[in-house]
Structure formats: C-alpha cells, structure tokens
C-alpha cells in the first residue's frame, strides 16, 4: 500500500483513472474492474468509498465516451433505450432480492457464464448468429449504420432476435442488481452474439447504457455520503479525459483489437467472480 501525501495520492489516482477511462470506453464497461482494486489494494481507500468512486467512474466513462459515439453514430441510441427497459427491470428486481439469495452460488454461476462468454466471443466470427427477419426490429427501426474509420467505409447492419436480446438483458440487469457488478460484460455479448450488431456498435451502445443505469444508484451513493470528494475528483477527472480519448481511438482501431481486449476483460472478471464465490463466507 502506498503511503503518500494528498497531492501525490491525487496524481496517482488520476493516472490510474486515465487508463481505466481509455479501457472502459473501448470495451463498453465502467472501469470499476480497474478502479476498485487500485483504490483499495494499492491506495488503501476504504472499500465503501472505493465503490462510491467507481460508480462515479462508470458515469464518467459513459458520458465522456458517449459524447463522441453519439455524434459519430457508432452508439445505437434506439437499441440502447429499448434494452434499457428490461435491464432496469432486472436491476430493480435484483436489488430487492439481493438479501435473500445465496451469493456464493451466484458468483460461481456468473463466473462460469463469463468463461463461456469469453470462449464464444473469442471465436465469435463463427458464433454470431446469422441475421434473420425481425418484424419488431423493423417496426422500431433498430437497424443502424456508422462510419468505420479503421475500415474506411460505412458499416450498415441489421438487428435481429430483439426478443432474445430483451430477455437476456433482463438477466444481465438482474445479475448486476444482485451482485452489484456493471452489466457491460453481458450487454456487449448479447448485442454482438445474439442481435448481430458489429462489436464497435456494441461497446459504444453499452457505454451509453451503463451511464443511464448507474445514474440512479450514484445519486443514492452521493446522498449517503459514500462519494468522497477527495477520492472521487481525481477518479472522475481522469476517467472523463481517458474515456474521451478512448472514444476517439475506438473508431480507428480494428475490431479484432477490441475483441481481444474484451475477451481479456471477461476472463479477469470471471476469475474475480469465481474467487469471490469460493471465498465469501
């Protein structure tokens, strides 16, 4: 654990958060996977305040990145709002059930699901289900297109299996409500593997969604006093700047790079979940 002056502490946390912001904006997650361990293990921050800062980081990632993604139309706002309905229902149900469910089993189950997801995503060219006619997606005009700077062309895509997407988003929301983990790790594979969206569109759309989901709980954390200004300020500032930069990077990176980063994230998260499953009393 580092033992430093307040100024050095702020600078170190700012630097870590910068990295978390770039990473989170590229793969569509909130960066809590970096911020929480860094604050608790490395900087000695109380877990309560680390979680408070990480929920701020989720919003900062989302807003920092989404500003670019929405303008460049990589994020699909209509899919985001559509899936957000069932994610939010799941999250509310999960929060209500959280005290009545054996967490160990859930952590282990979630860990296994993530490993399977990592495997599917790593060979997802084969696993993405072929598009098929979807009247609901047509009626809601969910299909999208964006300009891909890395490929130098406009990518058009059709969205299918919206009902399956809606159902699995419910489970993703339920899971985040129960275990308090961000849903990005599930949202991205759902959109990519089931609904047939290109990976960049998935991470950008997930980025847009996680901020909306986190806003309600962040307000609660702030009012409860879990968000320390001293800790949250360098986290938020670092993540905001990092995510804005990461968003500019996403358009230029090849899909394969994003995929590799995302699979790495899934494996690390899976190991964390399994570890918690076997060590939570």
């Amino acid at each position: 654990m580092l033992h430093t002056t307040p100024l050095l502490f702020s600078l170190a946390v700012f630097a870590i958060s910068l990295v978390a912001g770039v990473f989170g904006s590229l793969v569509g997650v909130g960066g809590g996977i970096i911020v929480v361990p860094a604050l608790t293990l490395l900087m000695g921050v109380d877990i309560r305040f680390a979680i408070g800062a990480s929920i701020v980081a989720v919003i900062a990632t989302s807003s920092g990145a989404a500003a670019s993604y929405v303008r460049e139309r990589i994020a699909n706002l209509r899919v985001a709002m559509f899936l957000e309905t069932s994610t939010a229902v799941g999250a509310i149900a999960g929060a209500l059930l959280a005290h009545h469910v054996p967490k160990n089993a859930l952590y282990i189950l979630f860990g296994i699901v993530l490993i399977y997801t990592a495997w599917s995503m790593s060979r997802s060219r084969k696993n993405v289900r072929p598009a098929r006619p979807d009247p609901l997606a047509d009626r809601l005009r969910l299909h999208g297109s964006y300009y891909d700077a890395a490929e130098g062309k406009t990518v058009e895509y059709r969205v299918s299996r919206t009902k399956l997407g809606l159902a699995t988003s419910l489970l993703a929301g339920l899971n985040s409500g129960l275990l308090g983990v961000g849903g990005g790790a599930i949202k991205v594979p759902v959109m990519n593997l089931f609904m047939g969206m290109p990976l960049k569109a998935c991470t950008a759309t997930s980025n847009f969604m996680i901020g909306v989901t986190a806003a309600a709980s962040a307000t609660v954390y702030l009012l409860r006093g879990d968000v320390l200004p001293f800790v949250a300020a360098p986290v938020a500032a670092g993540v905001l700047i990092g995510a804005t930069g990461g968003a500019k990077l996403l358009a230029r990176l090849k899909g394969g790079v994003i995929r590799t980063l995302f699979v790495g994230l899934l494996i690390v998260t899976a190991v964390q979940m399994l570890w918690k499953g076997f060590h939570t009393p």
Partner: protein
Amino acid sequence: MSQPHHDQLPPPSRAERVELVISNLLRWGVFASLLLLVIGSVISFAFSGRYGHAPGDTDALITAAGAFPAHDVGWLIDGLRHGRGQAIIVLGLFLLILTPLLRVVVSIVAFTIERDWAFVGITAIVLVLLTISFLIGGAS
C-alpha cells in the same frame, strides 16, 4: 443511409439532429463538470487545511473516521457560498451524475418532436424505472 464524412453530409435528418443535440448536451455536461472538479481540487489543495502536505494527512481523508464532513444540501450551499473546494467538487459530481438523466429526458422531448410514439413510450418507461430504482436505493 450512407454517411461518408461530416463535411460532405446531406442536410441532417430529424433523427440526426436529435443525436446532435444529445451529443452536445453530453459534451457541455462533461466539460462543465470537469471544470468544476479541477477548480474545486485546486482550491482544496491551495487553501484547505484539511488536504495537508504529510503522508498522514491522506489517511485522514480516505478512512471512514476522518472522511467527509457533511454531505447534505445545506452544507453544499453554504460551502459554495464560501467558495470551499470540496463543495465545488460535489457540485461537479452532481452535474456529472445528472448528465445521463438529462440525456433520457432530452430523448423523450426529441422523440416527441419526431412523433415517434413507440420510442416516447419506451424512453418514458426508462425514466420511470430509474426513478423507482432511485427510490428503492434511497430507502435501503
């Protein structure tokens, strides 16, 4: 709908204008909160005795015992009136948290202008659900 690049675009459709409004809202929200966070931090380091210069001062700032003096609205308003660094930071954090909620509200307005009633409904449902989850979180 092909979109080669920003400079050679056809005049934006209504849907594209909506996205532009949301994107600009996000930009300004992000910029304003970042500015408040930086100003608040600079003031805290320059003038607040609480931030200090010794390694021991950090411990007092990050453990439950020393932590945050107050976090109610009265403290915030009082702090802002006196230009206290931590109050300015909290205002910046509030603005940051409010941005995604504003995003949803603006979307409802935008979809209404577009007369896209299905999405007015969907977005309104999202807003109601967020309110519910906020109330549940506050109660527990």
